[in-house]
């Protein structure tokens, strides 16, 4: 029985908590959510169609613009799919540089997720700026690697675009030494904060079975207590050489989704430290022609992006452009169970849940 007359409200497409242009058509009974439907497509640029008219190397620039806070990992997923098409061998140093870039990007993306979640919670701007302080250092490192900060296009089929310059390594070392203290600082300020705990604990849970059935991956799946990370279960690149753990949550609530990201930053730092010790001089790029023509066939390359499983399904007809480039976007599929997570909760919980799932509209709409 409803308490009052149900009212349907459009939240978005310009609502600040949607982190882009995303609309939720929500039916409220008073303040309670009784029905909800997500509406996508406001940022649809047709990346898959555009990829069909560009050469394999040019498509790398399109992948930067999918999830624009984790461009390096998008590049990596795409070039891994290309390499599966023609079985290119990547030189060791190239693989290490890719791993370094990808793990730095994972930290940057988790910092953005944490900062914006707190922004949504009402801690306006201050925690966000603390998180952006460290992200800035990562972006500076990217600038040294490839000259760009956001739309990096650093990776190429067969390796990376260029070797890291001499002054990259001291800056990278300083970052590795400083970052653990900053993560401790976040943990002290955030996880020890009673207001934050009361706000996040126990709300909008999702179970393991529900998450798997809805194709949910990444931190949202791991928050249910299920250890599933493609870096461990299906190691790509050189991830089988590193010693790292997969943090898992307990009950799949907002707090677990938030806390897992803080822990994952520590694990990424462990991988980066091992990379720093193991990396040896050598070539960074296999001899792949600029006009790359893989043999006809198809391949599905996937990586563990900060949001979940990011996959590229490429079909080649032997030409210079992909015949079909399908993008399996984790942000879109992580929203599959949004209705189950939100119905029965209040409007304010919706804002928090959208923040803790960490969607990126560039990737949802593609």
């Amino acid at each position: 029985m409803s308490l009052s007359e149900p009212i349907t409200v459009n939240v978005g497409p310009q609502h600040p908590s949607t982190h882009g242009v995303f609309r939720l058509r929500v039916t409220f009974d008073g303040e309670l959510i009784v029905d909800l439907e997500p509406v996508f497509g406001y940022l649809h640029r047709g990346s898959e169609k555009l990829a069909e008219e560009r050469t394999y190397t040019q498509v790398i620039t399109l992948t930067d613009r999918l999830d624009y806070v984790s461009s390096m990992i998008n590049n990596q997923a795409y070039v891994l799919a290309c390499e599966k098409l023609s079985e290119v061998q990547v030189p060791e140093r190239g693989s290490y540089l890719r791993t370094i870039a990808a793990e730095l990007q994972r930290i940057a993306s988790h910092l953005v997720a944490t900062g914006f979640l707190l922004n949504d919670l009402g801690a306006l701007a201050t925690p966000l700026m603390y998180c952006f302080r460290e992200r800035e250092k990562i972006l500076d490192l990217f600038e040294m690697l490839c000259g760009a900060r956001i739309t990096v296009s650093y990776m190429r089929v067969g390796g990376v675009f260029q070797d890291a310059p001499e002054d990259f390594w001291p800056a990278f070392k300083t970052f590795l030494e400083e970052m653990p203290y900053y993560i401790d600082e976040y943990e002290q300020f955030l996880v020890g904060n009673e207001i934050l705990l009361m706000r996040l604990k126990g709300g909008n849970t999702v179970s393991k079975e529900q998450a798997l059935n809805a194709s949910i991956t990444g931190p949202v799946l791991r928050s249910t207590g299920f250890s599933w990370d493609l870096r461990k279960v299906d190691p790509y690149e050189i991830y089988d050489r590193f010693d790292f753990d997969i943090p898992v949550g307990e009950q799949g609530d907002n707090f677990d989704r938030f806390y897992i990201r803080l822990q994952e930053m520590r694990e990424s730092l462990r991988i980066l430290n091992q990379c720093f010790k193991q990396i040896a001089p050598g070539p960074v790029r296999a001899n792949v022609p600029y006009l790359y023509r893989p043999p006809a066939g198809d391949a599905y390359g996937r990586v563990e992006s900060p949001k979940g499983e990011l996959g590229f399904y490429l079909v080649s007809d032997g030409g210079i452009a992909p015949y079909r480039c399908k993008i399996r976007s984790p942000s879109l599929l992580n929203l599959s169970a949004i209705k189950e997570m939100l119905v029965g909760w209040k409007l304010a919980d919706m804002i928090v849940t959208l923040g803790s799932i960490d969607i990126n509209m560039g990737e949802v709409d593609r």
Partner: protein
Amino acid sequence: MLTYLTGESLAQRIEVACPDAVKGWKRSDLWIAPESVLDVSKYLSTAPGMKFDLLNSISAVDYIDHFEIVYHLTSTSENLSIVFKAKVYGRDNPALPSVISIWQGADFQEREIWDLMGVTFQGHPNLKRIMLWDGYEGHPLRRDYLEPPR
């Protein structure tokens, strides 16, 4: 560590339950009849020793004379990964059964394929445009799609 099943070994497993479904295989790929997609999916998601619980992705490819719908599946309990494909013929109203009753994750992906590729999924409860707006004409990811003159 995940194991990738070859098309041949998967075909042997499927033929036990759905004898007429398998159309052929080549290396890691397996082709099944489009009308048996739902039965095969039901079997794959429940059969002991497989239990494919994670639907990684559904992709559609336009090969002009037919559409190929590609399913990537993972079993998190048995650590298996498979691919199966279905060829759908006809350009006017290509259709195959929806698997949304088995995997909820198929919802947005099937809607997206219908929106951009124009392949109907029978039994989908909410098959409407997802990326483009209602009233849009045509399906832009088809190879023969031409942008309307402005």
